[in-house]
Structure formats: C-alpha cells, structure tokens
C-alpha cells in the first residue's frame, strides 16, 4: 500500500512536470512582442573663463579720454563710474552707446567682443574737467592736483531663455585698480 502511494506520488509529480513543460513551450510564443530601440550619446566641453579688459586714459587739454577694450577671449559687458572731489566741475561727453543709470554707473550697451574683433573696443568716454579748461595755464589759481577716479567693471555676457543677452552685474569684476588723474 505504501509502495503504491509512492508510485502514485511520483507519477503525479512527473505528469505535472510534463504539463508545465508543455505549457512553457506555448507561453514562449505568447510573450514575444514586437519591440525595438535606438541609442545615441554625445558630449560637449564647458570652458569657462574670465573676460579681460583694459582701460586706457589720456588727459588732453583738460579732458580725460577713457577707452575700454576687451583683451580677453570672451564677450563681456563693461560699465564705469566716475568719482571726483567736485562733481560740478566735470562734464561728460559720450556716444549714444553709453547710458547713465540711476546707480551712477555709465553702461556701455553693446557687447564687447573678444580681442582682435571689430567690436572689442568701446566708444571713447570723455570727462571734461571744466576747472582745468576754464583756468588759463598761467593762472596761479590752477589746481596742482585734481582727482578724477574712474572705476571700470566688466561682466560676462549671459543669455536668458529667449536667447537674449543680458548682464548680471552681481558677477562683475573690476578690470584694474582705479585710475586717477
């Protein structure tokens, strides 16, 4: 009787295994779906550098002529601010590309392009020192020293989502030590 049970159990196990195998043979086809794929990859290098600018100042006949130039490899915006002991004695002369804003800075609106390119130099910015102009050279009242300090700053050109360039002056850096005459 026990032997019979063993036979029965073995038989059932083998039969179940056979059925599972048969079912498995069928399910293989049922799970085959049409699929495909394609891949792509790429890269770029981010090179970040600081723009470099140069300020040139020359005093001719009581006028300080200021020129700013991009001498680096990156586009940049520039602005400058003028400090004088007596602001009433100075006048400014500049092209329409320069704009004075409420913060006291003069902003050069066009982008200064990298060195060696056509747009790398800003239009000249003139500071007329009237005290010097109006005083005859031989006048004994001619001040021996008249301080006009020009601070120039630059910042990288950024672009908004629409692709329009803008300047973030929070990232600005000074080009050099303030120049004075």
């Amino acid at each position, binding site marked *: 009787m026990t032997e*019979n049970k063993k*036979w029965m159990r073995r038989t059932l196990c083998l039969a179940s295994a056979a059925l599972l195998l*048969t079912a498995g043979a069928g399910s293989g086809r049922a799970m085959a*779906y049409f*699929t495909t*794929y394609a891949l792509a*990859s790429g890269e770029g290098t*981010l090179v970040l550098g600081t723009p470099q600018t140069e300020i040139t100042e020359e005093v001719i006949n009581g006028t300080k002529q200021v020129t700013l130039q991009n001498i680096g490899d990156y586009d940049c915006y520039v602005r400058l601010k003028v400090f004088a002991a007596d602001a009433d004695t100075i006048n400014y002369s500049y092209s329409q590309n320069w704009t004075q804003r409420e913060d006291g800075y003069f902003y050069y609106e066009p982008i200064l392009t990298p060195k060696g390119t056509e747009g790398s130099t800003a239009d000249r910015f003139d500071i007329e020192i009237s005290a010097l102009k109006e005083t005859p050279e031989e006048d004994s009242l001619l001040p021996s020293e008249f301080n006009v300090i020009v601070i120039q700053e630059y910042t990288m050109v950024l672009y908004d989502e629409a692709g329009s360039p803008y300047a973030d002056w929070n990232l600005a850096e000074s080009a050099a030590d303030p120049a004075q005459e």
Partner: protein
Amino acid sequence: MKKRKHIITSPVLFFSAAAVLLLLSTVGSTRAALTYYSDSYEMNVEVSSIGVSLLENGTIISNRNYTEQGWVSNHVGEDGEPRGILLEGRFQGDEKLVPGKQYEETLSVQNSGQIDSYVRVILYRSWADAAGRRDTRLNPELIHLDGLGETGNGWIVDESASTKERTVLYYQRPLAQGEETSLLCTGLRIDPEVLKKAETENGQTSYLYNGYRFFLEAEVDAVQTHNAEDAIKSAWGVDVSIGEDKSLHL
C-alpha cells in the same frame, strides 16, 4: 498484481499525452515555418516589421529597423548596439559654450517600421571631468533641455522613474508608419548658475565647472500597439493603460 500493472500504465499514459502535446507544439512551429516561405508570409513580414529612429535637428542619428535582411541600423557603436552620436562636432575645440545661451537641439522620434507603435525616450544627463570620470557633485539639472516635459507637446514625464540625471518620457499617441512625434525638446542650454560656483583668489576667478564635460544620452524604445498594455508591461516593465482613443496613460 493487476492493480500494480494499472498503476504502471498510468504514468505511461501521462507521458504519452505530454509527448503528444509537445509534438503538437512543434507541429505548430513547423506550420509557421512553412508559411514563412509562402508568398502571403512575405507580405506579412513587411506588415509586421517594427522600427524606430531618433532624430536630432531633423536628421536621423540612430535607428533600428527590422527588414528582410534582419535588424538594420545606420549607426552601430563599437559595442554592436544601434548607437548614434549626439552633438557631433559641436562644443569642442574653439567653439565655446556660453552659459545661458540656447543652442539648437531638437529631438524627436519617428516610426520607421511598418506597424504602429508606442514610443518612449529615456534621457540621461551628467557631468564628467576631463578624464571622463563622472562627477556626481555637479548638478545635471544645469544641463537644460528646453521644452522637455512641457505640457501639451504630447510627451508625458514618468516622474516616478525620473531622477536628476534621468528623465523618462512617453509619447501619448501611437505612431503610425512614418509618423514623427512632436519635438521632445527644442534647445540645449547650460544654466548660468555654473558661473556662481566660483572662487576668486588674487584677482583670479576659477570656476568649478570649468573644463568639465557634459554628457547627453538618449535611449528610444518602441513597442507594438497590438495588445499594448501587456506588450508594454512585458517589454518595459511598466503598467500603463490605453484609452479608447488609444492614448497612453501612466
């Protein structure tokens, strides 16, 4: 003794039945194989072949189509996979990538097979140093793909499967033969935030992201529309539902 004989006969019967079933399943395959050489089957091959292509700025850069010659791809990588090149010839050498500036980078998918299919795209973004070592300290979200995941363009983002580095998108409508999806993205832009990760020492500014390489990878998957829910579950391991209008929902 008679009972014992009966017991012995039973497994024989079971095995015979199993053998017959197995044989029948083989016959089924043979029947299919016979059809393979018939005229009508040749036509069926054309109808049932699947294919998908990835387009960058309107040009197919990677595809894998089933044809009479088997699987065919126009670009095969060293690993034998259908692998195209993104951003080829750009942002290398003298061409400097300006933070914030949008560069043209449109991606779309085309059904280049002969059957309708659902498609999805998995995009990976990452940073690596000059030696190619991936640097997870740097934020992959600063590699912007403009328009990615915008509502109304037909693509839906699987937020549960997406991370900072990976974005999984499904195209809601099935693509007919030759049909192209709407644009997955419209432009590439490096967030100007990269400029704020900088240190200045002795008047010299050094940027954390300077010299780093950004990587963009795309994987496009396509699956048949017939029995789509089961097919997608089987192929992609994702539970989706297909609406009456055949639109796919996560």
